[in-house]
């Protein structure tokens, strides 16, 4: 990972003559700091934890204080700083799986293996926030020392017990299926590509890149603007504005694909990356050659090992085909993509936290402004787009922005993926044109199992709606008018059998666990919110607690640094308004 030390001054052999010159210092260290998280990953992958000696070695090689490296290592759930067993299972007990009975798995594991571990301890299994396998109904992520990490979904308690006691695991992910007829779909047309470039190209793949190279950056930006596409990661910001801003900057710049999909109930990006990796790669390549960036990063959620393997293979195929590298498609343009793995931190999906994570710092968000388009990754102008957003880009360039703008509604253009899970007959990713209602999507997924109690849209950072709102079209404009957020396209249905106190408390717990701890409202407020909900469910003074929750809602929304804290009370407040708790 770090290579052979270039001199005795960086951990190499001492020679009898002594080395009489050393190249090092602040600037070299600053330029190499981004290797820290990959180095920690390498240690974790190889031996299952980061020991004191290993941390010191990495610190010396990177000219870092060990305390800095320790601060970074302890930020991430997937990096162990205590001697951990060779195999550790992270078992999802988040809301979508809870609706499918995850608490039973947790109970069985506690009985067989003892209590779930906390961060940094040596327990063989841990409770995990949403693993992005919601359509499977249960999931585990397995870290194996000396071998690649594995995903298992669906999973049973017996499987987990067997894996941690036997010390080995293979991938056992059920294939992505869909109840939808995919013949007319745009984004999900290919779901079994798995990195087969021939198949991708046979369906119009890389025609978008060819046209982008042909018409040049200015016209390409104009196509993206004309398409009206808004970001699909949750913030719904018009993509064209970002593309133009970054393109107009001079000097070194970057493009980043935000593939740190971690919003509970969201798994559409995983499905795209596993099934159709070239679409995202082509989208990011178009972004690179258009904005003038020579380096792209794809920040991939650490819990997506299958997507990591398929993307790695696809990138290699693209390089071999001359579609990445020093002379893209004979254009003379240079662009390449590096995958950076996250390591278990929801906050790193926030774009500025993501930059800090890539740069080798703790994944804490930065105060905005400055915005990424002015000063982003490594302080340079940076375009960040979500996986699904980028997957739309090839078609926008190939068919033109105007044609794309015809799809959907006037303000919400294009196709949209929704992640339907919970108590529905056929959970999965469904593609619709903007304008479909909540009811239509639930029906696409085979309808509700049992009587509907509530639907969570937008994920943990979203809001609950009840049966009276099912005919609301899922567009940016309609959801905004209803003071809801479309978020990342999550639709989790809960039937009457579900204890909504448990669900709401799990959401609050999620934010407490995932708060980075930087700002006071979020660091303390998210935990106080969870404590208050627990007191309500235990029969505390409801009126007094609702007052506390209201006050927390204000300070979280108004005074938190980033979107995590600002949205941490949204679902809770909506549950109170609907009388779910």
């Amino acid at each position, binding site marked *: 990972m770090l290579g052979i030390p270039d001199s005795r001054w960086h951990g190499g052999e001492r020679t009898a003559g002594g080395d009489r010159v050393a190249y090092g210092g602040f600037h070299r260290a600053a330029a190499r700091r981004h290797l820290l998280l990959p180095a920690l990953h390498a240690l974790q992958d190889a031996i299952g934890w980061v020991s*004191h000696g290993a*941390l*010191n070695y990495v*610190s010396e090689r990177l000219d*870092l*204080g*060990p*305390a*800095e*490296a*320790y*601060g970074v290592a*302890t*930020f991430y759930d997937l990096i162990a*700083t205590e001697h951990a067993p060779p195999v550790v299972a992270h078992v999802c007990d988040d809301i979508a799986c809870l609706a499918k009975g995850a608490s039973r798995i947790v109970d069985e594991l506690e009985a067989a293996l003892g209590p779930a571990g906390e*961060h*940094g301890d040596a327990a063989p299994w841990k409770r995990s926030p949403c693993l992005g396998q919601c359509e499977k109904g249960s999931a585990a992520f397995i870290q194996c020392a000396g071998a690649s990490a594995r995903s298992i979904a669906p999973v049973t308690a017996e499987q987990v017990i067997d894996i941690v006691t036997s010390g080995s695991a293979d991938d056992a992910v059920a294939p992505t299926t869909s109840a939808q007829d995919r013949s007319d779909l745009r984004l999900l047309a290919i779901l079994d590509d798995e990195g087969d470039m021939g198949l991708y190209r046979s369906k119009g793949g890389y025609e978008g890149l060819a046209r982008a190279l042909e018409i040049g950056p200015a016209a390409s930006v104009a196509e993206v603007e004309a398409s009206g596409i808004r970001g699909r990661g949750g913030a719904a910001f018009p993509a064209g504005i970002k593309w133009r801003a970054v393109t107009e900057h001079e000097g070194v710049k970057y493009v980043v694909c935000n593939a740190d999909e971690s919003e509970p109930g969201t798994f559409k990006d995983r499905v795209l990356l596993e099934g159709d990796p070239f679409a995202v790669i082509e989208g990011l390549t178009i972004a690179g050659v258009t904005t003038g960036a020579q380096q792209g990063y794809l920040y991939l959620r650490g819990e997506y090992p299958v997507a990591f393997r398929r993307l790695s293979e696809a990138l290699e195929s693209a390089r071999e085909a001359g579609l990445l590298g020093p002379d893209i498609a004979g254009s003379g343009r240079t662009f390449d993509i590096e995958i950076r793995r996250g390591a278990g*931190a929801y906050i790193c999906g926030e774009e500025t936290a993501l930059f800090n994570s890539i740069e080798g710092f*703790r994944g804490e968000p930065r*105060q905005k*402004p400055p915005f990424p388009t002015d000063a982003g990754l490594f302080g340079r102008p940076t375009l960040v787009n979500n996986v699904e957003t980028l997957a739309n880009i090839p078609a926008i360039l190939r068919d033109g922005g105007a044609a794309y703008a015809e799809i959907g509604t006037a303000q919400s253009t294009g196709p949209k993926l929704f992640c339907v899970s919970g108590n529905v007959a056929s959970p999965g990713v469904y593609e619709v044109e903007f304008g479909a209602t909540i009811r239509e999507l639930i029906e696409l997924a085979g309808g509700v199992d049992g009587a509907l109690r509530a639907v969570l849209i937008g994920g943990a950072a979203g809001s609950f709606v009840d049966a009276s709102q099912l005919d609301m079209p899922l567009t940016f404009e309609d959801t905004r008018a209803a003071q809801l957020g479309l978020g990342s396209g999550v639709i989790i249905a809960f039937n009457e059998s579900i204890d909504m106190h448990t669900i709401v408390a799990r959401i609050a717990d999620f934010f*407490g*666990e*995932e*708060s*980075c*701890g*930087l*700002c*006071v*409202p979020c*660091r*303390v*407020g*998210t*935990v*106080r919110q969870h*404590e*208050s909900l627990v*007191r309500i469910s235990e029969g505390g003074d409801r009126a007094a*607690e609702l007052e*506390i929750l209201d*006050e*927390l809602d*204000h*300070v979280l*929304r*108004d*005074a*938190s*640094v980033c979107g995590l804290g*600002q949205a941490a009370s949204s679902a809770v407040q909506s549950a109170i308004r609907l009388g779910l708790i």
Partner: protein
Amino acid sequence: MIEQRISPPKTRIDVTVDGSTVSVPEGSTLLDACNAAGADVPTLCYLETLTPINSCRACVVEVEGSRTLVPACSRVAEPGMDVQSDSDRVQRARKSVYELLASAVDLSLAEPETVRQMERYDVDPERFGEGWHRTDEVKIQDDLYIRDYDKCIMCFRCVAACGPDAQNTFAIDTAGRGLNSTIATEFDVSLPESACVYCGNCVAVCPTGALMFKTEYDLRTSDDWRPDDQHVATTVCSFCGVGCNLELHVQDNRIVKVTSPMDHSVTEGHLCIKGRFGWGYVQPEPD
């Protein structure tokens, strides 16, 4: 032919604070603008000699057109900004911020300014109910300073002073995440085993007494810390030729603490181990 880098006078911009217009140099923060307008904006994590980190959110103000409140300490003022420094919304957020902190950590030794602001916003530490509270043993690992993380509000000033803003030693950093995060050495090794060089700059910037010179800690423990009986004399450190100003805090003709003025161009309040702690030779320990 004389070449000097003289920066041209900065352009000034106008900002409205609480209805009145103030003119500040370009590049000023909203905090500068509020101060210029005479507004009373509290700060906790902010220190003029360190890079703002925006963590405490006590300095938030309302800016016309901004969805959320914005931190005055780091937000650069733009022409025509309309700032409310103490609107109902601002007051509500600040009160909660102080209450959340006071509910989780021991603020009994916080700076007088913090105490004043907490009184101003009528802070009730009990309001958010009984719950998580820091419980840390006092770390006493040497004779120079102690660490009592029960009192730590995670303002990160110590990390900045130990690291990029002054000392560049990086002996401490934030470890862990969320409410369980804390300021720590690697693997929480003791200070003498860490990279710490005992400049004491972390102690000097700590606003809550979580970091405290051992002399002060011992006097407080024996109930003999008497600020009213102390005087401060400014002198120049005797240990090298850099010319660091020392503020000697003297009680009963004995030095009990050494600081350096934050507003002095030589030190900006920072010292090294010798200047901070090396004064023992003028006062042998009492028998």
